[in-house]
Each structure stands twice: as C-alpha cells, then as structure tokens.
C-alpha cells in the first residue's frame, strides 16, 4: 500500500515537473480568456458554496 502511494505521488511530481512551463504563448487574448475563466469559476464556486450553506442551514 505504501509503495502504491509512493509510486503515485512520485508520478504526480513527475507530471508537475513535465508540464510546469505552459507551451502556449500568452498573448493578450489568451491571458484575458484565462482571466475571465478564473473569475467565472470563482463566481460559480461561490454560488455552489452559498447553495451548500443554504442546504445546511435549512
């Protein structure tokens, strides 16, 4: 079991190293699209969190 987790944690570290530097050129358009996406996801997560709290309180 320990070996299993060790193998996979190492694998994840290896993946993080392999893809650490994004290949896509960060043009203004790309940067803006990714920024909007981040904001969108933060808002969406906020709504989901709010709903979760509402359910818990209800």
């Amino acid at each position: 079991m320990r070996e299993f987790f060790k193998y996979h944690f190492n694998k994840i570290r290896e993946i993080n190293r392999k893809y650490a530097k994004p290949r896509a050129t960060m043009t203004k358009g790309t940067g803006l699209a990714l920024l909007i996406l981040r904001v969108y996801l933060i808002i969406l997560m906020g709504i989901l969190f709010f709903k979760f709290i509402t359910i818990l309180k209800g």
Partner: protein
Amino acid sequence: MQEEIKAKVLAGGARRYGIGVIPRLYYYYRRVAKWLAIFLAISGPGIIVMVADNDAGGITTYAVTGARYGYGLIWFLILLGPVAYYIQEMTVRLGAVTKRGHAEAIFESFGIFWGWFSLCDLVLIDWLTLVTEFIGMTAALSIFHIPPFVTVIIVSVVMSIMVLQGRYWTWEKIALLFCGVNLIYIPCAFIVHPSVSGVMQGALIPGFPGGLNSDIFFFLMANIGTTIAPWMIFFQQSAVVDKGMDEKDIPFGKVDTFVGAMFTVLLAAFVIIVTGTVLKGVPIESADQASRALIGVHKYLGTFLAIGLFDAGFLGAICISLATSWAFGEIFGWAHSLNNKIKEAPWFYGSYFIAVITAGMVVLIPGAPLVMITLFVQVIAVTLLPAVLVFLTLLLNDAELMGEYKNTLFQNTISVMIVVTIITLSTLYAVSLLFPNAFK
C-alpha cells in the same frame, strides 16, 4: 494513384470526343466507391460520440420535452445539431494534428493548474454521469422485470468484454452496432401516426409554445446541456488518436462527425415526436415513466422506447468510462490504447473497471440519492464545460500547434459566438437547478 490518373484521362477524353458515357460513369462510380470505402474505414468516433450523446439523460430530456411542448421545440434541436458538429469537428482537427488527447493538450499548453482542474473535474463528472447511465439502464430493464443487480452485472461484463478483446477497431464496430439499435425510435414514431403537418411546423417554424417564460427557458437549457457535454470533447479527441487518424483523414472525420450530428438530431426529434403525439400534456418526469405509459398505448411502443433507453444508457456508459481512462493514461503516461492487451495497459483497464464497477454499485445501494446525483451532474458539468470550450478555441488558434489547420477568422467568429452562448445558457441552467425560483 496510376489507376486514378488513367480514369481521369479516360473521363477527360470521353468528354472531349463526346464518346464513352459508360466509361465516364464507371469512373465516377469508382471514385464514389473508393471514397465510401475510405469513409467506412475512418468513420466511427464522430458517429459514436454523437449518438452516445443521446444518453439516458438525453432521452429523458427529449421524452419530457415532447410530453410538455409536443412538437413545438423540434426546431431548437435542429439548431443544436450544427452547434454540436461545430464543436466536435474542432476536436477531430486537434486530435489528428497533435496526436494527443484533450487532457494532455490542456496540460501541455496551459500548465498544471488548468490541467489538474480539467482532469479532476472530468473524472468527477464522468463518474457521476456513469451513475446516471446505470440509473437509466436499470430503470429501462426493470420494465421487463429484470432486477437492477442483474442489469448491473450483465452491463459490467459486456462492457469489460468489449474493451478486453484487444482491438480498437472491434470495439468501435461493436459500439456502432449499438448506435444502430438507437434507430429503434424511428419505427416508434411511425407507430404513433403523428401529424406530419404538425411535425413540419414544429421543425421549421421557430416558436415558444406558451411564450418565452421561465419554464420553457429551463427546457431549452436542458436540451443544450444534453447535446453538448464535456466528456464528448475528451472522448472524440482520444478516439481519433487511438484510431490513428492523420491530417489527411480530417475531411473524412468531419463527414463522420456531420453524419453523427444528423443522427443525434434525428433520433432526438423522433423521441419528441413519440411523446409529443401520445403523451402531450401528461406529467412525465423520466423516459422510463414514458415507456411504462406507452406500453398501455401500444404493445410495442413502450417496449421499443425502453430498449432505446437501455441502449442510450449503454452507449453513454461505454464512451464516458473510456474518456476517463484515456485521459488518465495520457497524463500519467500509462499505455492507454484499446489496441493494448490488459497485461500491457493494466492501469488503463484498471481505471476503466473501477469506474464501471463503482458506478454500478452506487445504483444498487438502497436509498441512494439518485435524483440528487442526476441534478448534481448537470450542475457540476457547467464548471468544466466553459473551461473545455475556451481551451478548445485557444488550442485551435495556436498556429505553432495547428499549422494550416488552425481556425480561420470565420471559424473563430462562429466558435466564439457558440462558446459564449453555451456558457451563458448552461450557467443560467445550473443556477435555475440550484435555485428553482430564481427566474420566476
């Protein structure tokens, strides 16, 4: 090649000297036959992903839409066909040019944050959707008095055999066979004798039965949600790669996707025609409920609809579980082809079996919150769909990556319009699911 030149000369000569209609016809026949042979060899991923898109959740949405609004929203589904084609066509180009799956493309181009976000979200959505497919399949077979545990076992065994035979080609042909079973909705529509003028009116004249209110808006968004799903993008790109499609195969891949899109719209319309004819105004909440109601109307109708629902769930299940395993394999560097034997790709097949077995087991848990899971799938899908669509558009604009196959200005204009519309509507749909009174 030499034969082709000979045939061209023959055809040209025939035209020039006004002789040999038969050789000219023979030349055209040979051209069409050759094109068709190549198309049949290359087609598969597009048709499968599009027909599988009409999964158990999709059939339920169409059945309920028909029961609620009759033929009134068929036009909207016809509009969704080109939209689905447009998105999936981009995955064909991306897969054929880069020879990488979508998960790997995101990791490589946008880094680990977006990569892990997409992978984890995909795994969660796929697994939950897989549960809903099992819900659909067990509900469909319960109409034939088959207990859920028998359905789960049989489906898991068949799904395992399909991938373990060791060839992508065989898997694809079996999947296409199941796609053919989906055609069962066509005789259903003829059995109910729909009003042809009513169907034509619903298909050709856009309108909102009862006006554009929050209820119909909910249905429009639900139909979008079932037509464009994140797993489809991951699945088709990985299938294109696993099949070994190349740049030269892109035109065939596009036709394959186009044919699939036509099928998906046609079959969805037929489901709506069936329930719109027989069950209009009946409060139907699911496809299996519609099947039960239809059994009382005609001895084959309900049975056919139940078979179709099972087939839809099965097709969805085989594609969704593979989409996850392919994505894992790409990122973790495991062997991840259906052409690999189980010994060569244990992690790939292992993740596939774990997904199938655990999803099947959830359905068997007494009192499991299955309705909640179904709703949750639709909500959580909205967190991945915009990201995937944005990444797809950005990747298709990467000149270094795509070369001559990058999006043109015209393609980008349409693509951006589709992406913005889908993101807006699917977000509103998720909000309306979370807060049912938000738009009332």
